[in-house]
C-alpha cells in the first residue's frame, strides 16, 4: 500500500471510471433521440393533456432518486410488466446490470436534456421554417435541413448536462442496478463505498479528484464544441 503512489489508480478504481463513462455515454446516446422528440412535442405540439405530459417528463427532477429507482424496479424488474416482457421476448435483463444503470441515469437526466433542447428549439425562428416551406421543403425535410442544424448547440448542451448528471447519479442507480463492482459500481457508488470502508480515505479522495477532473474536462470540451457549432451554424 505504502509503496504505491497515491496517484496511481487501482484496478477497481480504473474499472469504476471506465464503467461510469460507458454507463453515461450509453445513457446519453440512447435518450437523445427521445429527448429531441419530447422537446419537439412540448415546444410545438398543441394537444389535450400537454400539461400532464410536461409534468411527467419533469417528474424525475423533483422526485427523490431512490423513488425513481424503486419505480424502475417495479416496471423493469424481471417480474415487472416491462422487464418481464423484455426478458421473455429478447432475453434482455435490466435490473442489476450496467445497462440498467444506464436506464436509471437516463431517466434521471432526461428532464435536464429535454429542457436544454426545448430552449434551443423555442429560439429557432419559425419564420425560417416558413421560408423553407415556400421553397418546397416538406415537414421532415424542413426539420432535418433547418430546424435541427439550428438547434444543434442546444442539443449539444443538453447532451453535456445529461452526461454530467449521468456520471453523478447515485440514488436511482444503486436502487435499480445495485452496487456491483465492475458491473454497476459507477464513480459515485465507488466513492460512497470507499468512504464506508476503513482506510478508504485515499481512494475516496482520488476518485473525488477524478470526478472533478472529468466534470471540468467535459465542460471545457462542450464549450469548445459549442463554439465550433455556433460558428458553423451562424447562430449567436
Amino acid at each position: 500500500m505504502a509503496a504505491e503512489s497515491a496517484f496511481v489508480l487501482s484496478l477497481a478504481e480504473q474499472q469504476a471510471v471506465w464503467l461510469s463513462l460507458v454507463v453515461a455515454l450509453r445513457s446519453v446516446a440512447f435518450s437523445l433521440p427521445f429527448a429531441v422528440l419530447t422537446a419537439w412535442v412540448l415546444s410545438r405540439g398543441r394537444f389535450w393533456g400537454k400539461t400532464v405530459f410536461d409534468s411527467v417528463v419533469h417528474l424525475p427532477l423533483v422526485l427523490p432518486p431512490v423513488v425513481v429507482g424503486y419505480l424502475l424496479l417495479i416496471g423493469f424488474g424481471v417480474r415487472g410488466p416491462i422487464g418481464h416482457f423484455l426478458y421473455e421476448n429478447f432475453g434482455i435483463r435490466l435490473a442489476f446490470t450496467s445497462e440498467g444503470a444506464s436506464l436509471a441515469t437516463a431517466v434521471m437526466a432526461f428532464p435536464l436534456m429535454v429542457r436544454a433542447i426545448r430552449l434551443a428549439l423555442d429560439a429557432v425562428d419559425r419564420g425560417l421554417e416558413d421560408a423553407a416551406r415556400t421553397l418546397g421543403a416538406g415537414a421532415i425535410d424542413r426539420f432535418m435541413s433547418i430546424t435541427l442544424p439550428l438547434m444543434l448547440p442546444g442539443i449539444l448542451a443538453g447532451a453535456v448536462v445529461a452526461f454530467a448528471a449521468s456520471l453523478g447519479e447515485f440514488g436511482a442507480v444503486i436502487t435499480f442496478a445495485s452496487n456491483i463492482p465492475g458491473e454497476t459500481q459507477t464513480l459515485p457508488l465507488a466513492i460512497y463505498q470507499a468512504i464506508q470502508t476503513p482506510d478508504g480515505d485515499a481512494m475516496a479522495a482520488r476518485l473525488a479528484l477524478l470526478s472533478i477532473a472529468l466534470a471540468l474536462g467535459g465542460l471545457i470540451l462542450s464549450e469548445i464544441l459549442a463554439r465550433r457549432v455556433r460558428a458553423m451554424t451562424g447562430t449567436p
Partner: protein
Amino acid sequence: MISVDIAKRLDSFALNVAFEAGGGVTALFGRSGAGKSTIVKAIAGLVRPERGRIQVGEVVLFDAAHGVNVPAERRRAGVVFQDGRLFPHLNVKQNLLYGFARAKGEKAIDAESVIRMLGIEALLERKPATLSGGERQRVAVGRALLAQPRVLLMDEPLASLDVARKGEVLPYLEELNARFAIPIIYVTHDADEVLRLASDVVLLAGGTVAASGTLAAVTGRLDLPVEAEALGLGVILEGRVDSHDAARGLSAIATPLGAFRLPLLAREIGARVAIRVAARDVSIALERPAAISVQNMFDAVVEEVRPSGPHVARLAMRAGEGRLLAELTADAVVRLKLDAGARVVALVKAVALAR
C-alpha cells in the same frame, strides 16, 4: 393571371379582399396594418383564409368551397420576406440552391443567370450574417426565383433598408419582371416603390380593397381615392426615345402629347419608355412665356376643374393626342379664370421627370 378573393378574421380587423393581378408587377399598397402581409401569406399558403379562392394561372391553390388547400411547400409561390429570412447556417450559395434543389420538373430559371443579374457572384461563399442589408435582400430574391415560382410575392422587401441600400436593390427589382416573366405581387407602404416598380396597383385600407387597376387608371382620376393620395395624381405617358442631344444633355421622347424633353437618358433610340407626369409638377400659363427655364410646354384645353380640399384644385386637360393633369392652388384657378374649355399652356419641368 392571379385572382384572389378571400376573407380572414384577424385580431384587430377582418380582411375581406378580392382583386386580380396580371403578369406584371402588382403593388399591394396601403398603410401598415391594412392586411397586405396577410394577403401574401394566404397566397403563399402560410395562412389559411376562412373563405374564398386563390388561383394562379390555371392552378387553384385554395378554394374553401371545394376543400382545396394546396400546402405551401407545393404552391410554388416564391416569397421575399421583409427580413430576408436567409438560413443562417448555410452560405449564400447553399441558400440560393435550397429551393432550386427541391424544385421539380424543368427548371427554366438557372442559377448562373440569376446570380449574374443580381450581381452576387462575389458573395457565394459568405454566410448571411456577414452580408449588408441590401446584399441580403438580393440573395433572398435570387433564392425565391431559383425555386422556379409561379408567382413572386415580395413582402416589403425594402422596408428594413435605409435609402442608400434601397437604391442598391431597386434597379434589380425593376429588371426582374421583364427578365423572368413571372408575375410579381409587391407589398409596400412606400409610394416611391409603387411608382417605380408597379404596373398595377391594389389600394388597401382597413382590410378591404379601396380601388384597383393599372397604376395609370388608379392615379389618373380627378377624384383620386384618398388611399392613393400618397401616390399622387398624375398621368403615365407611353413613349419612345426619339433623339438624344448630348451637347445640351437632353433626350426627346415622342409621346401622344408631343415631344417631351428630359435630362439625357441612357436608353437607345426607339426604346419604349413610360414617363409619369405628376400633377404637382405641371404649371399652367395662359400664353407661352418667352424666357423661361421650363423645357416642356404644351398647348392644352381644360376639360374639367375640380376642387380637392379647400385651397387646392385639380385640372384635367387635353393636349395633343393625350391627357395631362395639374394640381393648382384654388387662387390660381380664380386668377386665370380656368374653366372647362379654357385654352392654356401646360408647363412641365424636365428635371421633374428625371428618374
